[in-house]
């Protein structure tokens, strides 16, 4: 009905013949001239609208994350203190990296700052939930980290959105729009990380500690470095020192320091170091795919990697890496079936490497790198 009347109106309008035609022509011309002059501005508006939608979603994720942290802490704390103010303060916490103008000794300074930040976060958790055990404290600290990351992502995207809008700078908006899909993927990964940390489920990054846990299962372990345990296992007549972060709380431990101490203890008499870690998969690769490499497969700021490289070079110990491919969305979310299924394949490869490159009686170090949440030993 409406369409019919609109069509009739248009017909009547058109029947006024050439004058209408002329007006329409002029309007078209005006439109094209305006589009030529303001086309980029229009494009900017469209892009801003798209960014606006993503920003709104980021805000929802950030707020929901904060809400989950507050509710979890309230639930776990037996005292009636409202943690909201403290959590809001923690979520605004800023980490200032060490100065790199004079790179000498930067690793020590970096490690110190990371340790201080880590202790501070755990202290804050203990102040809010004094009755929490070690695993719960670690999980809550991990939750706070994820919520903090969500807050930072939202604020940075909002900054560039407002800056681009304020200055109508096409290039700022274009760059922001280009990286937004990746940013959204990362934010959603942190959102699912919060759910995993809340319930203490193992995450994709925990594949290294999971393999180490399988190897050391049933043997006696001891703490070699802070939050890092080691166990002596026998594989095909070789003495294997398997190490991982101390679980089942969310923890990455200090694998670099642990390997350094082990090597110093053995005065370098170690025939091979095998490092197992999750690695970023490329598009097209399958999650859970296992690949091998040479070098120290330890992510993060580089402190642990540096320590292992330094001590391995000092004693000329060969380094092997076994990597399990994962997408960015799998690393911090609950471990996918395909990733969990790669354990047997990795163990098979470890045995092959040991068999091919070492002889009976040799000492070997195997390190399972990653967050050990939901994985004991």
């Amino acid at each position, binding site marked *: 009905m409406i369409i019919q009347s609109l*069509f009739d109106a*248009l*017909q009547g*309008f*058109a029947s006024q013949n050439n004058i*209408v*035609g002329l007006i*329409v022509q002029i*309007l*078209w011309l005006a*439109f094209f001239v305006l589009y030529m002059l303001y086309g980029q501005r229009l494009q900017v*508006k*469209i892009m*801003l*609208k*798209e960014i*606006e*939608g993503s*920003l*709104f*979603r980021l*805000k*929802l*994720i950030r707020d929901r*994350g*904060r809400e*989950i942290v507050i509710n979890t802490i309230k639930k776990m704390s037996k005292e009636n203190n409202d943690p909201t103010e403290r959590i*809001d303060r923690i*979520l*605004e916490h800023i980490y200032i990296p060490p100065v790199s103008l004079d790179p000498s000794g930067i690793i020590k300074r970096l490690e110190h700052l990371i340790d201080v930040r880590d202790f501070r976060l755990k202290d804050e958790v203990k102040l809010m939930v004094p009755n929490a055990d070690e695993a719960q404290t670690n999980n809550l600290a991990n939750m706070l980290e994820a919520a903090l990351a969500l*807050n930072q992502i939202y604020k940075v995207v*909002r900054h560039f959105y407002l800056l681009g*809008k304020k200055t109508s700078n096409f290039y700022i908006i274009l760059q922001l729009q280009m990286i937004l899909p990746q940013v959204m993927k990362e934010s*959603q*990964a*942190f*959102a*699912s990380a*919060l*759910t995993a940390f809340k*319930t*203490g*489920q*193992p995450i994709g990054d925990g594949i290294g500690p999971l393999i180490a*846990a399988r190897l050391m*299962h049933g043997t006696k372990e001891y703490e070699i470095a802070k939050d890092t345990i080691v166990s002596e296992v026998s594989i095909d007549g070789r003495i294997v020192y398997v190490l991982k972060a101390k679980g*089942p709380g969310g923890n990455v431990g200090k694998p670099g320091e642990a390997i350094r101490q082990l090597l110093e203890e053995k005065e370098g008499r170690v025939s091979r170091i095998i490092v197992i870690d999750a690695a970023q998969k490329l598009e*097209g690769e399958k999650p859970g795919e296992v690949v091998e490499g040479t070098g120290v497969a330890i992510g993060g700021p580089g402190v642990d990697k540096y320590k292992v490289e330094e001590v391995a070079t000092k004693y000329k110990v060969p380094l092997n890496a076994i990597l399990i491919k994962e997408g960015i969305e799998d690393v911090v*979310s*609950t*471990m*996918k*079936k395909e*990733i*969990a299924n790669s*354990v047997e394949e990795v163990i098979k490869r470890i045995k092959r490497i040991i068999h091919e490159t070492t002889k009976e009686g040799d000492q070997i170090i195997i390190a399972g790198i990653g967050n050990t949440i*939901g*994985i*004991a*030993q």
Partner: protein
Amino acid sequence: MKSSSGKIRRSSFYLISITAVLIILSLVTITQTLKTYKDTGYIDFLALTLSASAIAFSVYMVLQMRESPLKLGFEQPKVSTVIRCSKCGFETTREFKEGDYILKESEPCPQCKGPTFIYIIFRETEEKRKKKKESSSPI
């Protein structure tokens, strides 16, 4: 934490106005072209092409403005816990319960009464969607 995104909504009115103007102009042009064709038998292909392009552009703008469904990532996935007997290797799978962790001791084995432990905890992946994606990819 205060909300500071008050300035965020405005551009949609601007975009909707442009789209509306474009659609009206295109409709008038098409009607004019039809009328000219009826009166003189002449088809103005240029005007028709312009109108069709304008309508296509408007549709594109509307699609760009369309909101996609909100999925934040907090949705609880289906997580399973596999329990294995250390003696006979018997395995059972159940839904994940809070407090579960890998290598945690569990109830005695229903088959041999031996000690059991949580062997693995994993998230189920959406098989249907994955299969569809895989089959559509030529590489």
